[in-house]
């Protein structure tokens, strides 16, 4: 299956009680210290004035890292924008490993250490590509890319998160991007997931 134009994964924080503003100096330091392998980090965008939105963005060339408060569910959103991959499977691999790497960096950051924990037992996955992955309603005839994508994501994510991991489609409006929810009750921690993806230390 073709790689989507953009692909994002959001992991959710457990007991988020950090002032989002504290991410601004952290992200600036990440840029200065070039902490993310294989990605060019560009700038920090401050959108904390927006209610329930992307509060602080670390804007990159290939991907953005977002402290995202949308729907009142704080999390680290990783948006892969360029060099997504040759197909959906590789795009998912790249996006997932970089998102988990971002989660690890966040949890272990010297200024944030001990304050944050990202849950690995669930995630939101969004295919930002309405051309190739229209968010057509189930069974309306135009939903075959969505059905196929769900099958592909299920297969790939079960191999990483465990056999009991399930991927369900979020029933949002057709104009919104195709969105899936990962539920992984027996998911291991970030390091183990990265090792399974071959991206560990």
């Amino acid at each position: 299956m073709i790689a989507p134009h953009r692909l994002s994964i959001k992991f959710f924080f457990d007991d988020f009680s950090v002032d989002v503003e504290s991410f601004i100096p952290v992200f600036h330091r990440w840029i200065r210290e070039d902490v993310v392998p294989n990605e060019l980090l560009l700038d920090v965008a401050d959108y904390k004035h927006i209610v329930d939105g992307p509060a602080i963005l670390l804007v990159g060339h290939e991907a953005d890292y977002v402290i995202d408060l949308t729907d009142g569910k704080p999390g680290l959103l990783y948006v892969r924008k360029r060099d997504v991959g040759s197909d959906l499977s590789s795009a998912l691999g790249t996006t997932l490993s970089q998102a988990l790497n971002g989660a690890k960096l966040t949890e272990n950051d010297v200024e944030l250490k001990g304050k944050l924990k990202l849950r690995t037992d669930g995630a939101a996955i969004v295919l930002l590509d309405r051309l190739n992955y229209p968010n057509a309603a189930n069974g309306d005839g135009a939903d075959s890319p969505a059905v196929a994508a769900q099958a592909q994501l299920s297969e790939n994510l079960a191999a990483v998160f465990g056999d009991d991991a399930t991927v369900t489609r979020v029933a949002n409006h057709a104009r919104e991007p195709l969105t899936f929810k990962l539920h992984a009750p027996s998911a291991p921690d970030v390091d183990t997931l990265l090792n399974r993806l071959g991206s560990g230390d």
Partner: protein
Amino acid sequence: MSNIGWKDVLADEMSDDLAHEIDIFEGQMELMGQGKLDEKVFAETRLRRGVYGQRYDNGQRHDGFESRELAFDEKERIKGPDTLWHAPGMQRIKVPGGGLTPNQLDVLAQVADEYSDGILHITTRQDIQLHFVHIEDTPDMMRRLASVGITTREACGNSVRNVTCCHLAGVCRTEVFDATPYSEAFAEFLLGHDDVQDFGRKFKPAFSGCEAEACGLVMMHDIGYLAQIQEVDGNPRRGFKVYVGGGLGTVPHQAKVLSEFTPEEEILPLAQAVSRVFARLGEKRNRNRARIKFLVAKLGIEEFRRLVEEERKTLPHDDRWTAYMDTLPHYEEKPSRPPTFLNGQVRSSEFNQWFETNVYSQRQEGYSVVTVNLPLGDLTSQQTWELADIARKYVGDNVRSTVEQNIVLRWVSDSDLPNLYEELKAIGLGDPGAGTIVDITACPGTDTCKLGIASSRGLAGELRTRLTAKSASLPDAIKDLKIKISGCFNSCGQHHVSDIGFFGNSRRSGNFKMPHFQVILGGKWHDNAGSYGLAVGAVPSKTVPEVVDTITSRYVEERSKGETFQDWIGRIGKKEARNIIQPFMQLPAFEQDPEYFSDWGDPRVFSLGDIGIGECAGEVVSLFSMEISPAESEAFEAQVALDENDPARADALAYSSMLKAARALVRTQFLDVGDSPDRIVQEFKTRFFDTELFFDQYAKGKFGQYLLDRHSNGDPKPDNDAAHRLIEEALLFIEATHACESKVGGNVLVEI
């Protein structure tokens, strides 16, 4: 699945003109990638498609300690002078008069989340801007916008910018008449018009219905139209008082009256005549003196008026001048719900607070305009499509953006207001305070602008937070003051026309630079931006909240009954105003207070190292260069069509490319050649072929004959070979056009 693009999917949903323009732009991108287009020509080309540069696109960024290179791929590949191809940029999207529909909001939200950072930003010209956009994504983005009738054409560059119009036009209680259909006709008429392609700088129009309100802010525009009705033979006649030569920028000018009354049928030819005078006599080489305000000041309004009147007499008649007037008697907005009243409904205190500031009672009984107060002009993709649904439910297509970076929902049936408020609040858009001191306007500043010096958005966010926290206890006298902030002296935040304005600059303290804001007091938003404020001194950025507190406290203490802020500033004078801020002008050393040496929302040690060259700056490109570029793009497209085994399309494109090249050449001598192929070929033949100016030293008239032959063949029926031959001929013809222009010497210049 992978071979079908938006171009194919949306082919039937875009107008032919918009679709073709976007194809040409895509072709020009391709040619630029192949190194076949001049970088300055391409820069102006993309600017005229709204594809703008953004901070750090020169590949450098100061990290607080040193300026460091950003390791973009293919650093040799550029999209303009000192602008890297792969660096993300800004896309400006024109919204004439701010008019938006729910379907357009849906698509804007979609392109924002697929191509930018998912944030839509409303500008002070009612445009929408998306940031961090990669240039490769722009053609598809434009196609998706075109599918709902939105163009980005001439959103930037030396062109007619978005035509602004009061967001209350048509429902206002004090307007003379609704200026909306006139502003729409103006925008449509001048979009891509031949006479607006050769300006030395941008040109900003505005339409207004009321003299005393802020309305269209015509006094600060290059050209401004203020609605008037005159009695003629006992009958009321619609027209406009026309202003020209206003502008903010570093040197603000109040507009001058060009005409006390221009009847409605004359407003478009008048604009065309003004455009011609500006194109012909406006400064081209020195961008700092190239806005029309400098031309008006140099000539004097009487001489400028005389030249415009003379020019008007020479204009060839154009049916479009008055064609729109047939629609005026039928022009109306349709409310989606019947009028109702709010009487008797239970209201929460939150609702009452919002109602007081965000609801304007229309002159049509039972209806109101609701202002959706957007913090810093921003909303997310998700909020945008949720807002689109709210609009569908309550007001239909009656949505507009405002120059104060908000969105209004018009024709809200009054009894719907409580439910509407709850629904806005649920999506994070229920903030009260629209149009008050907490509703602060700010340009992008150092967040994304290449010219930004200080963080206008960071400061605006801080002030908004602090003032909102104490809004309940703010004295009435200051609640409705306007605060507007620009990141530099270029005035995009419109600081000159606010009660309390700021623009970014810097001062040195020891070995460090400190972000500052110049304080501007007493500008007037009302009376169509009736007067500009006084600059009283610069203060460190981190002191601005205290400066605002101090100034407003003094005003509350000292004002006499009914005295406006402008009157108070006028009464105390510049010297005393400066005394008020003097205590804040002392600069601590870095060691004393390092906080002063970073900006709001940006912990890096302040630097001016990230300021780039504005994309409007300094390069001179001939009109011929700008107009031959689409010809080259079409010749390229013709080759693509041939590769796709479509000889008919290849032939048509090759022929069209020759016509475009010939037209570009003819327009170096005769600007009014128009678009008719017969006329273009006739003028080309008379001026360049018959005179042998077009002749090659060895090939003689061969290349010119290619055009004449193809033009005389009304029914070509090309096969692949014939189409291939014509493409070759078109390429040779275009080369010969370049050679001829060099030989003859183009004399029409544009500056980017």
